[in-house]
């Protein structure tokens, strides 16, 4: 008899524990109002805090007013996520996989293909209907920028901006070393030459071009792509629809890394291999240990500002286009090269309010809102009717580099191939493998990922 009573007691304990803190998880208020949620990797007074300010002070209030004018009671909640991009991506995939998630997500462009293939995202017009295709904004966004959040000819979201990559250098160090400023190298040799002179003049680490797995996508975009494009090739052959895995251009690119980091020690391989190397390279650039750094425009408009005052930046930091190996030897026969990526916003296909969610996305992406955004943070806008505001350097970068730019292939295997490229550069700059060996290992690994039919091998004579 007592046993039964005891069993009950035990179950009561289980139940008590289970409900113990249930009381704390407040139930969501359910009213007739339409509640939209949006999320981004952004925290007030932390990562991407300007974005929070723009959304909370400008976008959301005006949107709610506009909706009220239409007789709809819509409220928007911004969910600020403070963790890493990878964690955010995992949350998205998990939530979308069970039909949940916020109505609007900030989204990195190159995640789109794998999410679409997994059935987690739907084209915008499937989610919100014809009103999408009728939006005025598309006429002001170039095909290339629309493609940032596109896949196989469909639009999945709207870009929030794009970027370009270039060489940043320290004007003061160049002048001290007796190199004429403004400096615009026209070949790799001229970069190396400047590096040698700077080293002679006592600059600790003249050149830094990203390599290695620790920097992740920053290595692929700011490092490997910039060098490979200069050698005349893209990671992916868009005409053939295949990956370049072994070629003279790849070897040339790897040899440039070898020259900089191993043969002449113009760069410091440590910074490419340790966990916080990218941050350290920013700090070293700011303190004058590094003179030449290949980075994205984000470095100019944001990263360097956490290391030095804006005034100092304008005085000592300047930029140059990244040259091809030799004039005319770059990708598509170009003299100079760059590459663009971008993030944006996507609609959740599971949203209960597709019409309002799209309206919010369109509102954010309108000219009015973007003009305000430019005031807060001048950068290359995705709309051609919104110029870069009040930053001549940014404007110049946009004008000179956007015509030269290319993009990453939008393919679900991209992230894995990109990792292999990072690994290949790491193997060279750490001295683990020769450029030839590293290229062979790369070809092997990429073939394994994408299949033998999807790779191009150009023999090296």
């Amino acid at each position, binding site marked *: 008899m007592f*046993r039964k009573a*005891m*069993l009950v007691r*035990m*179950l009561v*304990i*289980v139940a008590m*524990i289970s409900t113990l803190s249930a009381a704390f998880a407040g139930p969501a208020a359910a009213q007739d109002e339409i509640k939209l949620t949006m999320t981004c990797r952004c925290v007030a007074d932390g990562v991407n805090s300007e974005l929070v300010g723009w959304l909370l002070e400008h976008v959301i209030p005006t949107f709610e007013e506009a909706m009220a004018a239409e007789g709809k009671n819509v409220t928007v909640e911004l969910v600020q996520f403070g963790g890493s991009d*990878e964690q955010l991506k*995992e949350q998205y*995939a*998990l939530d979308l*996989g069970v039909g949940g998630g916020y109505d609007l997500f900030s989204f990195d462009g190159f*995640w789109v293909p*794998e*999410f679409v*293939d*997994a*059935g*987690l995202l739907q084209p915008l017009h499937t989610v919100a209907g014809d009103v999408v295709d009728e939006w005025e904004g598309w006429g002001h966004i170039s095909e290339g920028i629309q493609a940032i959040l596109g896949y196989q000819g469909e639009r999945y979201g709207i870009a929030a901006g794009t970027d370009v990559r270039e060489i940043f250098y320290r004007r003061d160090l160049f002048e001290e070393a007796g190199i004429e400023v403004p400096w615009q190298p026209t070949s790799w040799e001229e970069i190396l030459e400047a590096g040698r002179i700077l080293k002679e003049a006592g600059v600790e680490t003249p050149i830094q071009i990203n390599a*290695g*797995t*620790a920097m992740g996508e920053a290595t692929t975009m700011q490092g490997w792509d910039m060098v490979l494009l200069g050698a005349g090739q893209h990671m992916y052959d868009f005409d053939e629809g295949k990956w370049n895995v072994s070629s003279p251009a790849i070897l040339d690119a790897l040899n440039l890394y070898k020259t900089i980091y191993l043969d002449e020690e113009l760069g410091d391989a*440590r910074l490419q*291999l*340790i*966990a*916080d190397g990218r941050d350290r390279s920013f700090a070293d650039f700011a303190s004058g240990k590094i003179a030449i750094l290949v980075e994205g425009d984000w470095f100019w408009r944001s990263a360097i500002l956490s290391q030095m005052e804006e005034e100092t930046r304008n005085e000592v930091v300047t930029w140059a286009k990244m040259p091809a190996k030799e004039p005319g030897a770059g990708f598509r026969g170009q003299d100079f090269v760059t590459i663009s990526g971008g993030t944006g916003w996507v609609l959740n296909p599971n949203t209960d309010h597709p019409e309002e969610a799209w309206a919010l996305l369109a509102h954010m992406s309108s000219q009015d809102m973007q003009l305000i955004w430019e005031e807060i943070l001048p950068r290359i806008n995705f709309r051609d009717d919104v110029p870069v505001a009040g930053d001549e350097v940014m404007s110049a970068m946009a004008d000179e580099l956007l015509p030269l730019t290319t993009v990453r292939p939008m393919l*679900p295997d991209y*992230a*894995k191939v990109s*990792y292999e490229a990072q*690994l290949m550069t*790491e*193997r060279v700059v*750490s001295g*683990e493998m020769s450029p030839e060996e590293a290229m062979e*290992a790369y070809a092997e690994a990429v073939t394994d990922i994408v299949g033998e039919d999807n790779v191009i091998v150009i023999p090296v004579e």
Partner: protein
Amino acid sequence: MEKRPGVFSGKVGLTFLTPALFFVAIFLILPFFWIFYLSFTNRTLTGVTAANPQFVGLENYQRLFDFDQWMRYGQFGNALKITFQFVLGSALLGQAVVGLTVAWAFYRRKGLLRETVFTLAVLAWIIPEVVVAFAWSAFLDVDRGTLNTILSAVGLGQPDWLFDYPLLTIIIFNTWRGSAFSILLFSSALETIPPSYVETADVVGASAWRKFRDIIFPLMRGHILTDLILITLWTFNVFTPFLLTGGGPTFRTELVSIYTYRTAFKFFEFGRGGAIAVVMMLINFMLAMGYLIALRRQKAVS
């Protein structure tokens, strides 16, 4: 493991176990077999294999043991080798030896010294890992860190710890982080040894080392086994070094836990991630058996 008769009947015992069985069944056994099942599929979180995962048999396991490349940086063999060195260094030679030494040094002693040492050791063990990671990053900083400030003051230079000696550094780090458990366990174990045993040896004038070897160690054999089993298992799964090194430079600190993280979290390959977890579990099981046999044999010899 002596057999004692139960106070209660099996049914009563089972009743006490009910809440535990509830938790274990739903939140442990169920997910475990789920992962076990996933390890035979190509399940990912994104991409085509997220929507339509397929049964791939032993492929995930075979890929781990692809001996052509497996000792290359970033491959499973390399991670396994580093993990074994890490466990040997930080669990066996580190935590267990530090634990025994500290416990033995303070055997039958009380007072401020003991309290301070124990509290500091426990502090290292209990504060959250992100906090620990920050403190150590500052501690190890090449130019301004506490460690190099001290070393250069006594003329020993300023090594870049995480670059030049990454594995050694995380071994010392993990010894620091986890020794408290062994210290506490061994000091409690020592207290159970009747003082008369040691006093007899004192009268004979035996050295501290001989006392330890001939009297203490045989009596503590069981505790040592427990300690080794637990700290080995925990050390195999430790992830905190990732916060210090990210697994680098050039994968020189890529423990299997970090390798799994890369597979499961970066590329979302959960089938493969599950296979790694299952392999690591089996290795742990074999090690535990190994400890058991080694200590049994030792017992038979003495």
